[in-house]
C-alpha cells in the first residue's frame, strides 16, 4: 500500500520534465555584484584607525599571494595549449596604439546599477597620436526627474591647451584653457563611476601602462568567446575600489566591451557596460584635421579663454586639473538643467 501511495505521489509531480534554465550571463553579473558586496563587507570594518592599520597589514598578506597566484595563472594561461599564447593585455595595447593617421572609436555605454541606472552614453573618440590631439564627444541620455534628457559634451585636447563645449545654454561658448606645464596628462579619472567617467580606449591604455591590467580568463558574449582582462580593484585615490573589465577579441585583440564596477558607495554598487560599436583608422588630411578643432565643429560659438591655472607641483597640477575639468562639466550640466526647467 505504501508503494502505491509513493507511486501515486510520483505521478502527481507538477514538474515532470526538467525546465530550461537561464543563460549563465545573469548569474555571472549577480556573482560580480556579490564579489563587490563582499569587498564592501571588508570595507565596513575599517571604522577605527586601529582596524585600518590592521587592514593595511592584512591587505599585503592577501595582495602578495594573490599577485603571485595571478602571475602563475597568467603564465599557465599564456603557456598552455588552451591559453592565448600571447600576452593578451599587451596585444590589446598594441592593437589600440595609434599608428599613422587618426583613430576613431565609438562606444555605447549603459548604466545598469546606481543612481544613473537606465542612462546611456554614446561616446565618440578621435585620437591623432602624431599631433598629440584627442577629441571626445559624449552624448548622454539619462533620467532627470520624470523625463529622459540628452546632453552633449565635447572636449578637445591638444599640447598646451584643452577646450570644452556643451549643448544647451552654453552652446555658444567654447572654453579654452591653457596648460603651461609640459608633460601634463589630462585624465577624467577612474574612480567613482559616472557617465562622465567612461574614457574608452584611453582609459584602458592608461591602466595598462600603469601595470594594472591582467588576464583573468574568458567570457562568452553573443556566442563569441572573448578574452577577459581585469584591472586591479584600486583607483587613483585610496578610497577608490573601481574595477575595469575589458573583453578582447581573440583575433584582432581590440576591446569589444568594457565593464566598470564601482563599489565605492556601500550598498550602492554602480555598473557601467560599454560596447565598442566601431573602431577605424582615418587618413590624415585637411578634412580629418578639422575633427579636432571645436571652433570648426561649432562655428557659431565664440572662444572664451580661461586663465591658465598655476600649480605648485606636477601631482597637484594633475589633481587640480582633473578636478577643475570635472567641475566645469558639472557646472555646464547643471546650467543646462536649470535652463530646461526654466523653459518648462
Amino acid at each position: 500500500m505504501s508503494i502505491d501511495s509513493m507511486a501515486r505521489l510520483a505521478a502527481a509531480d507538477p514538474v515532470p520534465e526538467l525546465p530550461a534554465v537561464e543563460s549563465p550571463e545573469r548569474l555571472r553579473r549577480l556573482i560580480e555584484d556579490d564579489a563587490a558586496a563582499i569587498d564592501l563587507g571588508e570595507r565596513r570594518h575599517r571604522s577605527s584607525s586601529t582596524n585600518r592599520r590592521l587592514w593595511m597589514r592584512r591587505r599585503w598578506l592577501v595582495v602578495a599571494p594573490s599577485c603571485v597566484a595571478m602571475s602563475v595563472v597568467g603564465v599557465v594561461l599564456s603557456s598552455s595549449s588552451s591559453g592565448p599564447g600571447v600576452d593578451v593585455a599587451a596585444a590589446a595595447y598594441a592593437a589600440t596604439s595609434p599608428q599613422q593617421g587618426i583613430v576613431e572609436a565609438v562606444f555605447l555605454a549603459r548604466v545598469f546599477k546606481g543612481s544613473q541606472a537606465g542612462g546611456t552614453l554614446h561616446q565618440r573618440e578621435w585620437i591623432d597620436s602624431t599631433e598629440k590631439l584627442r577629441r571626445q564627444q559624449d552624448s548622454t541620455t539619462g533620467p532627470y526627474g520624470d523625463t529622459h534628457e540628452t546632453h552633449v559634451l565635447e572636449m578637445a585636447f591638444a599640447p598646451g591647451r584643452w577646450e570644452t563645449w556643451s549643448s544647451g545654454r552654453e552652446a555658444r561658448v567654447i572654453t579654452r584653457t591653457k596648460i603651461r606645464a609640459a608633460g601634463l596628462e589630462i585624465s577624467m579619472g577612474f574612480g567613482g563611476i559616472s557617465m562622465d567617467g567612461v574614457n574608452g580606449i584611453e582609459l584602458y591604455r592608461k591602466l595598462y601602462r600603469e601595470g594594472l591590467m591582467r588576464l583573468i580568463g574568458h567570457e562568452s558574449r553573443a556566442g563569441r568567446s572573448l578574452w577577459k582582462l581585469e584591472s586591479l580593484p584600486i583607483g587613483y585615490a585610496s578610497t577608490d575600489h573601481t574595477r575595469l573589465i575589458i573583453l578582447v577579441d581573440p583575433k584582432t585583440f581590440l576591446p569589444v566591451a568594457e565593464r566598470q564596477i564601482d563599489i565605492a558607495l556601500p550598498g550602492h554598487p554602480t555598473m557601467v557596460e560599454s560596447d565598442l560599436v566601431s573602431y577605424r583608422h582615418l587618413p590624415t588630411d585637411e578634412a580629418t584635421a578639422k575633427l579636432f578643432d571645436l571652433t570648426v565643429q561649432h562655428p557659431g560659438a565664440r572662444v572664451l579663454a580661461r586663465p591658465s591655472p598655476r600649480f605648485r607641483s606636477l601631482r597637484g597640477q594633475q589633481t587640480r586639473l582633473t578636478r577643475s575639468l570635472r567641475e566645469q562639466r558639472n557646472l555646464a550640466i547643471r546650467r543646462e538643467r536649470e535652463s530646461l526647467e526654466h523653459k518648462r
Partner: protein
Amino acid sequence: LRFELLYAKHGSAVKAYVLRRAHASLADDVVAEVFVVCWRRFEEVPPEPLPWLLGVARRVLSTQRRGERRRIALCDRLAEVAAGANEQAPTDLLASVPEAGYQALANMADPTLAAALARLSEAERELLLLIAWEGLTPAEAATVLDIKPATARVRLLRARRRLTRALSRERSDLTTRQSLSMEAPS
C-alpha cells in the same frame, strides 16, 4: 569552469525543485540566488552536489517566505496606523502567504492526494516529496533537510504509513460525502 559545469548540470534540477514549491515568477531569482551562494561557498560543495544545492534552495525559499510574511505584516501595521487604532485592520493577507510546502500542494492536480499530504507534518511531507519528485535516496534527502540519514529513514517509514492512512481516510471521507449528497433531497 567547474562552476559553469555545475550550473549546466544541476541548474535544471534546482529550478524544478523551486517550481514545485514556489510561484513560477520566483523560480529564476531563487535559482540565481542558490548558485550565488554556491559560488561563494564553492569549497564546501560536496562531490555529489545536488542534495547540497537543494538544501540551499530550501533555505533560500524559506528566507523568501519569511521576508514576504514580514513585508505583509508591515503593510498590515501601516494599514492599522492609516485606518486609525479603532478600526479593524485587514489580517487575511498574512494567511495568503503559504507555509513551507503548501505551495506544492496547491500545484497538485490530485485533490485527494493533496488533502492527504496536508495532514502530514511539514518535515514528513518534504521528505516524501524529495524522494518522490526529486528522486533522491533517503540519505540524500537527509542532506537536504540537514538531518541524520538514520533519522531520515525512520521519518520516511513513519511518513509513508501516515500518508497511506491519510489517503484511506480521505477516500472514506469522500465516499461518505458522496453518499450524503446522494441521500440529500434535491
